[in-house]
């Protein structure tokens, strides 16, 4: 098993749900409540030293339950090693998890992207607002129930914006 997975099991025995190994990649499924402590431990532990957060992704498993998940892809320059953390979120309507911006500053924009497109709230984020879509956009387009061509609000957005500038 991956060294980081062993360390996590020792350090956070109640938080680890399962460890998945697939073709040399390790995914640790954790409970969302102490995600910030887990991330800080992985960053600061001198043997694994995951000092770099590659990306954060939001997932929508509709219609399964739990519906939403957040995935953290970590990288260690010291060991040239990767680790994936995955946390399923309990709520299907208002998914939320602690922000890890205090651990890796780069999480700021990644979390804003996940909020913008998936509607996942990151508690403790310093500036949680839309990053890609216009600030007055309605809805979160990468959610499964969002229509591919956009809803009525999306269809009239350009006209409203042009009219507002006149």
């Amino acid at each position, binding site marked *: 098993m991956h060294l980081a997975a062993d360390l996590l099991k020792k350090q956070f025995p109640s938080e680890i749900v399962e460890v998945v190994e697939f073709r040399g990649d390790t995914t640790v499924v954790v409970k969302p409540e102490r995600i910030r402590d887990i991330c800080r431990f992985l960053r600061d532990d001198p043997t694994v030293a995951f000092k770099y957060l590659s990306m954060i992704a939001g997932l929508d498993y509709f219609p399964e339950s739990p519906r939403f998940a957040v995935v953290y892809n970590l990288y260690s320059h010291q060991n040239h090693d990767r680790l994936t953390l995955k946390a399923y979120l309990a709520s299907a309507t208002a998914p939320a998890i602690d922000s890890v911006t205090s651990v890796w500053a780069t999480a700021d924009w990644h979390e804003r992207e996940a909020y913008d497109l998936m509607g996942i709230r990151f508690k403790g984020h310093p500036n949680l607002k839309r990053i890609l*879509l*216009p600030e007055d956009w309605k809805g979160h*387009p990468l959610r499964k129930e*969002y*229509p*591919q*061509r*956009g809803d009525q609000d*999306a269809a009239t*957005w*350009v006209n409203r*914006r*042009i009219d507002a*500038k006149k």
Partner: protein
Amino acid sequence: MGIEEHLGYNVLTTTLEKIVDWGRKSSLWPCTFGLACCAIEMIVTAANRWDIARFGMEAFRASPRQADLMIVAGTVCKKMMPAIKRIYEQMTEPKWVIAMGACASSGGIFDSYPVVQGIDLYLPVDVYIPGCPPRPEGLLYGILKLHEKILQDPFLTKQYRDKLAARREAA
């Protein structure tokens, strides 16, 4: 040197419309902006291999107030559309619009929520150029078609003035 030798000291007659239309089509100045991969094809059209300067069009103007041709080259996101509409409104009359490529013409492969499904929803398009992206030859052909259109533009007629008034009304 030049055409003076052949003409000598003569008087040529033509109509005002023809000479003005000829002047307009011979020095179309496109607005400098590109939105996606079509812009790369537009850039090479301006470079020496295809050489848009042959048609008096090498002066891509950074200011819309000095341009009279808008080449919408690429995918237009909804977030970008108000800015493009504004650039179009800043351009001085007379002005023309080319929808370059599948995306500008119809949204192309991006049949989804953030992409404008054809700029003709918001702008009066004169020439549509198909392709994804069109080759520089395609763009030049579209420009030559626009030249033909400009040459046939009877701008002194009441019909034209009515059309212009209708366009201003719509904008």
